[in-house]
């Protein structure tokens, strides 16, 4: 007979031990933290914590950690400041001191550009840079090409927050030999009505991230209509792939934290701050069920990643 309670008790003890060990591990690095680097988190949430963990693991000297509510005036004079998330970046940009070097990380490229324009409009600062959460459009379009090499028309939809990407999207599509079919959606539009002709006339559809509500609102219709018209969808997150997109390219919080940690080590070595960049590390996820439904034979995600890396190395 299986003794459920005994098993549960054993597991409870195991989990308790791990929890205590985890707390102790978090406390230990305090003694060797760097005083000349500060890590500012937008919040304590699982994704920010993952960025923080990756930075702490990668950095030669783990930076001191603060959150927005514990920041002091003196903190903004720390020689190296890492701001994780949009809110942390916004705060540190508004308190920016020219003697410091500020690296914003884990935030959208459009958010960084707009914040910088609004908060420091006067000039570009060589000592301010960023690592974005989003993928370069060129990488996403390239993935679309790898998923469906024979595709002629690329479909996409832009919302109010992504409308500014129109020119870049057109140029990127042209560069990959795609004709672009675009739908512009605002809050009062019927998504099925506007997406149907675009998807019906596309060979592959690329999802451009917009606000959460836009992303959530169009995702289900996009995936339904793509099934209906047998058009593969290239998403921007693992969640999109799980929900039915054929493939997505995305960077995890840990990957962005790793890159941030590597940049921090460069700063420790007094190297110049690299310019704002898209993630260097990324994953491709594919949904085999969607691929089978669409009768697509796809390489493995690792093979797709390798192909993207090789193509980008040739740029």
């Amino acid at each position: 007979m299986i003794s459920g309670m005994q098993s549960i008790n054993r597991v409870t003890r195991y989990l308790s031990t791990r929890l205590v060990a985890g707390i102790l591990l978090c406390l230990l690095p305090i003694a060797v933290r760097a005083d000349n680097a500060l890590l500012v988190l937008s919040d304590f949430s699982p994704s920010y914590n993952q960025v923080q963990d990756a930075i702490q693991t990668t950095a030669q000297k783990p930076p001191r950690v603060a959150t927005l509510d514990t920041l002091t005036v003196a903190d903004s004079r720390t020689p190296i400041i890492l701001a994780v998330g949009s809110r942390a970046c916004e705060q540190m940009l508004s308190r920016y001191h020219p003697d410091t070097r500020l690296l914003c990380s884990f935030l959208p490229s459009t958010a960084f550009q707009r914040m910088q324009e609004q908060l420091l409009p006067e000039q570009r600062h060589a000592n301010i840079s960023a690592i974005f959460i989003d993928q370069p459009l060129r990488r996403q379009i390239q993935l679309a090409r790898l998923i469906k090499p024979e595709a002629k028309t690329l479909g996409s939809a832009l919302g109010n927050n992504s409308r500014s990407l129109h020119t870049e999207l057109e140029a990127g599509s042209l560069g990959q030999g795609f004709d672009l079919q675009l739908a512009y959606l605002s809050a009062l539009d019927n998504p099925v009505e506007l997406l149907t002709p675009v998807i019906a006339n596309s060979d592959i559809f690329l999802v451009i991230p917009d606000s959460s509500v836009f992303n959530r609102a169009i995702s289900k219709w996009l995936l339904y209509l793509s099934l209906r018209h047998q058009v593969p969808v290239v998403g921007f997150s693992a969640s999109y792939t799980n929900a039915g997109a054929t493939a997505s390219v995305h960077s995890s919080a840990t990957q962005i934290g790793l890159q941030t940690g590597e940049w921090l080590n460069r700063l420790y070595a007094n190297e110049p701050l690299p310019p704002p960049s898209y993630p260097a590390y990324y994953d491709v996820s594919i949904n085999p069920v969607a691929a089978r439904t669409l009768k697509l034979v796809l390489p493995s995600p690792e093979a797709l990643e390798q192909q993207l890396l090789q193509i980008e190395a040739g740029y």
Partner: protein
Amino acid sequence: MPHYRDLLWLAPFCALNLGGSLAYGDESAYLSEQDFLTDIPEITSATRLSQRLTEAPASISIINREMIRASGARNIPDLMRLVPGFQTMHVSANKFATTYHGASDNFPRRLEVMIDGRSVYLPLLATVDWTSLGLNLDEIEQIEVVRGSNVPTQGSNAFMGSINIITREPAAAQGGYVSASGGSLDTRDLHFGHADNLGLWSYRLSGGHEQNDGTDLYGDRLSRNYLRLSGSYTPTLTDTLWLQAGVDRGYTYVGQSDQIDETFSRRDHQSNYQYLRYQNLYSESGTLQLTAYHNYLNLGTSLTDFATVDAFLEEALGSPLPPSLVNEFMALNRPRDDAEHGITHTYDTELQLTDRLGSFNVVGGLGYRYESAESDMLLQSGKVTEERWRLFSNLNWAFAPSWSLNSGFMFENSSEQTDTLSYRHALIHTLNTQSSVRLGYSISERLPSLLERFANNNIYAPAALSPDGEVFVYDYDNAASPNLGTERIKTHELGYYQSFKHNQGYVDLRVFQERLTSIISSYYTGIDEEDYRKRVSINRNGFGWENRGAELQLKRRIGDNAFALLNYTYTNTRTDPWVHNKDLQGAAVMFEDSTTPEHTASLMLNWKPTPDLNLSLMHYYMDSVDWFEGDDRDSYQRTDLRAAQRWALGTGSELEAAVTVQNAFGPTYQEFYEHNLFDRRIWLQLMLRYH
């Protein structure tokens, strides 16, 4: 039914301006990283929150379209054979039942079954009638099965678990199918489905006719026609309205095949339903959902004919009665060939809000249900009704990296002066993005159904037989039990879930201990249990049992063209002493075998050697069991085979021919009743699909 009630369930919709958006965030704001971390909805059955299976606080099995098609199953309960912990019974040729962790009669009453969230549980029979749902298997997208009590999310009916049948979204397809099948039991079925747009609406229309002659021994045949319409409309980016309606009409023959000379009776059914669901994305992370539905079912069995009643009375009384008295007896008692007779309505409306508050994902809501049932067989005193309010919430708190706590509760208030409070807590440790360990604890309470609380019927004798010249009760058969309390289940569980890389499959393990107390059971009370005239059957919260065991589900893709699914469940059930007639001398009910099969297992192998050929093999095993009704059944093994070949017919259409052999290698075994024999059965299906 007062007329205003017909409209009351629509009231919440009147308060909404469906054409307008409540909110659409702040359009001037820039994107945040949270926009990239947006959860694209997946499974919601366990908590109403969108969750990956590694994050769910319960074990969930998904039966998708690929599995439905490959299984060759001809009804939904047969699909439950592919879910660990479930047992499926063919009560007769056309009456099916499924139960989780056994312990059931032919009317399993402790599972909630929903179609797109609409409960199809029948208050009149305290179970689900699978042959009047107005749905065919080709209309199903997937079935989400929550294994273990899910009352904190779905309410009383989900005492042992819940089944949510997700139908195909109208916008997801264009085109349709026509299928015809025939085979064993003289089956002749025709189904169709068609999806298209009508203005700004997307719709699916499906329907069909099913008939068979049942078994040779009982002639327990079936005939039914159904029609179903499902539509969706999205007036704005953030608003969606779904509408579903359907009818199902026909008949089945019902009876108990425990006696070889049992006569089955025709039971007609007429059912219809109307269902509305409105969803609004009111903020970056918030969703408002309103639902309202109405279910109607009218079951009809014939009045017993004069000759049968006359013979019955002669046997009971020892001498024949004059025809006038037999007629008077029939007028007084309206005896019917079977008890499955009556009309039942369910009206339900619910408001639900889902949002994210920092590290918390929260869902909460309020629901109202009105149930009515009338039956001159089961509820002789007249129509009975019940109103139920429910307040529920579920919170998922990611309190540390890789750790989350999920807590949910459900409070239900019944107009019968009974309240319930059910809750579930689960501590989930995510080992990596692919796997998690879960420790769960829950206490759930179940409100008695209308039937359990109010079932009553007596046999009245004509006045001429009484010394004082008045009609009198000849035999009290069932008495109502208005003061029934709630049933209770306490569950401890340990779960492990791991999905293999690249969606190649998963392992799902659940170790459980369930303690069920205050379970409603019928028993005779009275002066003399052996003298049927001096006893009456009532219900009370007097029974209980404990289940301990483990469930395993393993799915693995083998190459690109094959997969294997393995399910195994071990359950050790210990029943409490169950004493009849406790008020008097008492008599313990003895079970010859476990009331839950100790071992249940199933295996599915599917292989597509070419893109157009689909082969599958299913093997099912169920250990011996002592059902509460139907008696002891030996263990059985059954193997089903299916082969389907597809041919393209030009662009946009294809033809598929499939042959399914159930119990292919024998031997014939007993399904639920001694004389309900399941022999080798063969079906051929032709399906034309067009796009």
